[in-house]
C-alpha cells in the first residue's frame, strides 16, 4: 500500500502558509491600529473633558480675566447660528444642483459638474476661509451692508461653501437610486416633469437627502479653518445677531488649546467632548439611516 500524501505541509508549502499567516496578521494589526487610534482619542477627550461639564459650562459666558469658572454658552450659540446659516445656503443649492444633474443635464454636463464639485470638495478649508475673507470681509461689498468686518454671515457662508459639494454629491447618489419606474408611472398618469420631481422623486429620496445634510452639518460644525478670518473676533456674551462676529465651538477649542492657562485647557477638553459627542452621534445616526434608505431604494429597484 502506498503511503498517502503527507497532510502536514513541508518545505515550500510550509513557507507559503507562513507568509500567508504573516500577511493576515499584518492586515488585522493595521485595522486594530486604526480602531485603537479612535479609541485613544475619544477616551482622552472623554476622560479629560467630562469633569468640566456642569450647568454653568453650558449657560455662562467665559469668566473675566483672573476669575475662575465661566462657561462657553456664546460658543454653543455661535456654532448653532453658523451652522444654521450654512445649511440655509448649502441645502437649497445642493439639492437643486443634484436635481439638475440627475433629471435634466446631459451626460457631458453631468460629468463636468460632478468633476468640479469634487474639485470644490478637495479645496483645503483654509483656502475657502481666505476666499470668503477676500470676498466679503476685507472688501466691503456695496450690495450687503455688512461688508468690511467679520460676521456670522461671512463665517456661515464659508461653512456653506464646504457643505455644498457634500450635500450635492449625496443627494445625487440618492436621486440616481430612485427607480425610473416611479418616474415613468408618474408620466404615464399625465403628470408633468416638475410635478413628478417635486411630488415623486423628492419625497422618495427625502430620507437620503436629510441624512446627507446631517453628515454635512456634522462636518461643518467641526470646521475651524474657514472661521479663522471670517468670524473669529467675538465678545463674551451670547450673541444671536448674524451681522456680528460670534464665538464658535471649534475656534474656541483652537484658541483655548494654545492659551497658557490650564483652566482654559480644561474647558477646551470639555468643549471637544461636547463637539465629538455631537459629531459622532449625528454621523452614526445619519450613516445608519442612509444605509437603510439605500437598502429600501435598492430593493425597490
Amino acid at each position: 500500500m502506498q503511503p498517502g500524501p503527507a497532510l502536514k505541509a513541508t518545505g515550500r508549502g510550509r513557507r507559503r502558509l507562513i507568509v500567508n499567516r504573516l500577511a493576515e496578521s499584518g492586515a488585522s494589526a493595521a485595522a486594530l491600529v486604526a480602531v485603537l487610534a479612535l479609541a485613544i482619542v475619544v477616551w482622552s477627550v472623554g476622560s479629560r473633558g467630562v469633569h468640566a461639564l456642569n450647568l454653568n459650562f453650558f449657560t455662562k459666558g467665559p469668566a473675566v480675566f483672573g476669575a475662575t469658572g465661566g462657561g462657553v454658552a456664546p460658543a454653543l450659540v455661535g456654532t448653532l447660528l453658523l451652522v444654521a446659516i450654512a445649511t440655509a445656503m448649502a441645502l437649497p443649492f445642493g439639492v437643486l444642483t443634484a436635481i439638475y444633474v440627475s433629471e435634466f443635464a446631459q451626460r457631458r454636463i453631468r460629468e463636468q459638474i460632478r468633476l468640479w464639485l469634487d474639485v470644490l470638495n478637495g479645496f483645503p478649508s483654509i483656502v475657502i476661509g481666505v476666499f470668503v475673507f477676500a470676498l466679503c470681509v476685507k472688501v466691503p461689498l456695496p450690495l450687503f451692508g455688512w461688508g468690511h468686518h467679520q460676521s456670522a454671515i461671512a463665517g456661515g457662508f464659508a461653512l456653506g461653501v464646504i457643505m455644498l459639494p457634500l450635500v450635492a454629491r449625496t443627494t445625487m447618489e440618492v436621486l440616481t437610486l430612485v427607480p425610473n419606474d416611479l418616474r415613468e408611472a408618474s408620466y404615464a398618469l399625465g403628470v408633468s416633469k416638475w410635478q413628478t420631481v417635486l411630488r415623486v422623486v423628492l419625497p422618495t429620496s427625502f430620507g437620503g437627502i436629510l441624512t446627507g445634510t446631517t453628515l454635512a452639518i456634522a462636518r461643518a460644525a467641526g470646521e475651524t479653518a474657514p472661521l479663522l478670518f471670517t468670524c473669529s473676533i467675538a465678545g463674551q456674551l451670547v450673541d444671536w445677531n448674524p451681522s456680528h462676529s460670534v464665538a464658535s465651538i471649534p475656534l474656541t477649542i483652537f484658541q483655548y488649546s494654545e492659551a497658557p492657562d490650564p483652566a482654559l485647557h480644561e474647558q477646551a477638553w470639555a468643549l471637544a467632548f461636547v463637539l465629538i459627542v455631537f459629531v459622532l452621534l449625528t454621523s452614526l445616526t445619519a450613516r445608519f439611516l442612509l444605509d437603510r434608505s439605500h437598502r429600501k431604494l435598492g430593493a425597490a429597484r
Partner: protein
Amino acid sequence: MEAASVPAASRLPRTRRPTDRIGDAALYGLTAFAAAVGLLIVAAIIWRVADGAWPAIRVFGIGFVWHNEFNPVTSKFGARDLIIGTVVTSFGAVLLAAPLSVAIGLFLSELAPPSVRGPVGTLIEMLAAVPSVVIGLWGIFVLAPFDAQHVQPFLSSFLGWIPIFAHGQDKAESTVFTAIIVLTIMIIPITSSICRELFIGVPTELEEGSVALGATRWEMVRTVIVPSVRGGVVAAVILGLGRALGEAIAVSQVIGNFTPLKLTIFAPGDTLASRVANQYQGAVSNLHVAALIYVALLLLIITFVTNLAAQRVVKRFEFQRTGGD
C-alpha cells in the same frame, strides 16, 4: 405623451397645461441656476485668491517659491521652507498611511468575518468624522509629550545616523514628526474606506478561481486583487495626500510654526496651510496679508493639481475596468 393618440382624448383635459409648461421651465431654470452657482463659486475662489495675492505676486514674482525668508518686519517673504515642510509632512503621512490603509482595506474586504466587518468599518469611518481641531488638541496634550519622551529618543537612537531622524532639540514637543503622525491618523480613514470599496469590487469569480487553483489567501491578494485595482489604490492615496496637504488647524497646533526648517523631523517646522492659519490675524501690513494669500494660492494650486490627478487616475481606472462603457 401625445394625448391625441389616446382614443378618448377629447374628454381628457389637455396634458400640457400652461402651468405645466411654466412649471417645467421654472424648475429647469432654477436647478440650472443652482448648478451654475456651484461652478461660479469654484471660479470665484480661484479668482479672489489670485486677486488677493496679486500685490505680493507683483513684488516677489515666482521667486517667492524658492526664497526662504518669511519676515514681516523686513517685509521679505518667501515660501520655500513652507513648501518643503508641506511636502515632508504630507508625504511622510502618506508613506505611513498608504500601507496601513491597504492592509485595513484587505482586512475589511477579505479577512474579517461579517460580524466584525460592519462595526470595524464604521469605527474607522468615525475616525474621519472627528474634527481636526479635536485631533490637534489631543496632539498637543497627549501625542506630543508621548512622542517627545518615548518615540523620538527611541527612533533617533536607532536611526539617528540618517540626518532626517537625527536628534533635534531636547524634549521638543512641537515637531514635524508629531504633525506627520497627526496627519496619518486623519488620512487613514479616507484612503482605507476607498481601498475597501475597491477590493470588494473585484469579481468574486476571479478570487474563487485563484483559491481553487491552490493559492493561499495572501497569494490570491497579491496575484488577483492588487493587480486589478492598482490604479484605484493610487487614486485613493492621492486623495489622502490632498487632504494632508491642505490640513491647517491640526498641523498648526502641533508643528510649532517655526522656520527656517531643520534637516531633522524631530524639530519644529511649518507648512503652507498652517502658516496661513497662524499668521493671518497678526498680519502687520498689507503686503504681509498679500504674502499670506499668496501662500494660500500656492496651496490652492497644489491641491487643485493633486485632485485633478486623482480624478484622471480614477477615470482611467474605471475605463480599464469597464472597457469604456
